[in-house]
């Protein structure tokens, strides 16, 4: 390679980084402007102002409560899905049994179903049994996409672990169940953790279920509340507060992503494509 062309990859890198971060940067910048300069298009906000953040946290729009709701729904979904999914993934990765490929195919197929074809009948069911405006009405349907995702990721992870681990454990007198509990599970902790992050992000970002099954202000999740923020007048969209709230909702995820990027990328690419 000649010196002339060595900068080309760096230019490419710069373009990619700009492509990915510019809109996000704009959200950050807009959230730091005063309400009066919100339509300003300078790349750096002058003066810096936390007005929008005060509006988000201060007023009675229920944003803080909705953050708690999001944590609760995404957290419980993640824990449930990991409890069930880890066992299944281990069986799919390690045990040799009949219908294994059928089970695997069923699980991956369910993740392809369009959410709306599950949501409409569940909505009718939930109105029938009084589940509208409950947490379980958000958690249970969320498992329809979170569980296949977790099983798929964990299966790929368990398959990467050396088979000798169980063999050694069995030689030492462990049953398959003991081998799983005492040897595999502790060593699989990083994979389970990565899957937990990916599942949590997917559940945290869920929108249509939470939008459909809940209409009580106190139970709405953060994305739903933010999308329904109202301005002072009917035609005034509160972009400043929306951007500030968007930053607040996204920052935890971005921090997770920065801390565990290597693992997340490994998890996403090994676990198929979801």
């Amino acid at each position: 390679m000649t010196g002339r062309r060595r900068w080309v990859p760096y230019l490419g890198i710069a373009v990619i980084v700009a492509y990915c971060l510019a809109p996000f940067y704009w959200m950050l910048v807009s959230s730091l402007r005063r309400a009066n300069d919100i339509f300003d298009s300078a790349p750096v906000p002058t003066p810096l102002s936390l007005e929008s953040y005060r509006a988000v946290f201060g007023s009675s729009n229920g944003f803080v409560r909705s953050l708690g709701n999001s944590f609760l729904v995404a957290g419980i979904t993640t824990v449930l899905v990991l409890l069930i999914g880890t066992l299944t993934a281990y069986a799919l990765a390690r045990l040799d049994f009949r219908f294994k490929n059928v089970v695997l195919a069923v699980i991956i197929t369910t993740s392809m179903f369009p959410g709306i074809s599950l949501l409409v009948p569940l909505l009718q069911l939930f109105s029938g049994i009084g589940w509208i405006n409950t947490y379980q009405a958000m958690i249970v349907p969320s498992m329809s996409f979170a569980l296949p995702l977790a099983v798929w990721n964990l299966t790929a992870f368990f398959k990467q672990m050396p088979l000798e681990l169980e063999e050694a454990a069995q030689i030492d007198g462990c049953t398959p169940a003991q081998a799983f509990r005492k040897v595999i599970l502790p060593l699989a902790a990083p994979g389970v953790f990565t899957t937990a992050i990916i599942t949590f992000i997917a559940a945290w970002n869920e929108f249509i279920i939470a939008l459909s099954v809940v209409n009580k202000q106190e139970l709405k999740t953060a994305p739903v509340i933010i999308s329904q923020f109202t301005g002072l007048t009917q035609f005034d969209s509160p972009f400043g507060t929306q951007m500030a709230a968007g930053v607040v909702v996204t920052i935890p995820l971005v921090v997770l992503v920065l801390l565990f990027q290597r693992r997340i990328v490994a998890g996403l690419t090994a676990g198929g494509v979801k």
Partner: protein
Amino acid sequence: MAILIDAPAGPEPARPAPGLRRTGVGKLAALLVSPTLLVLALVVAYPIVSALRLAFYRRDDTPDPVTGLLRPGDHFVGIDNFTDMFAGESSTRFLNALWNTTTFTVTAVSLEVVIGVLMALVMHKAFRGRALVRASILVPWAVPTAIAGLLWRWIFQADGVANDLIPGPPILWTTDGAQAWFAVVVADSWKTAPFIGLLVLAGLQVISTEVYEAARLDGASAWRTFFSITLPLVKPTLLVAVLFRILDTLRMFDLPYTLIGPGKNATDTVTVLAFEEAVKFGKYGPASAYAVFLFAYVAVVAFVFVRLLGADVLGTKARRGR
């Protein structure tokens, strides 16, 4: 591979009473797998079957001729919900939504594949700054789609930054019409092209450098190398990624809903329509019919990809080769 070849030649007595071990393993496997299948039966299989049934029912809005009261509950209407989708007064909205769903999918996924592959090629070539790229590429993926919709709604405001950057009179992006459709495509490409790039990069990294060296020794041009080596070798990864992206875009809801809003001709997708029918109007019958149609649409696309194009969704082919 070595294990597969060696296994039959191995000494038979090494596995005493294989049947016994198998039954034990079978029971354990059933125990471990059944919770997942049970949950999926409850939250996926039951709703699907239920939607199939609901699609043949409709809430009756006409009063009972005898009592003059509104008749409670849903009534069986045969295939009326389905025929109404293609003929009759509500068919225009549905066919329009179907058209939007399809054009969104074809355009956005094509665009994302091109951008994603370009990104992967750049990242593959770069030796420095990989951590930075990887971190920034995960940012659009991590932003909740509904929030991404609001962010792009802000960017595409009449007096927003998009119109500041584009010369000429301001465009009313978020109202309706072709520009609204385009705004959704842009937002979707931003959100998911990096993700395709990530997957393709993983595919690129397993291609051995020897193949490229051989091509270079044979004097192949960069274009030739890309089309004759890189693309065919990365095709299995790409095919699965494209399939999942297509299925994801066919059920698109969050972006059109938060970026443009429901009830817009240019951006209403089948999911938006079904959501409106079910949540806003409580018409579960027609909503289910839309949902069932979308389900069938998705199934056909998945079938074409897996059977005709050979998308290896389960990863069995790749693993056997490893």
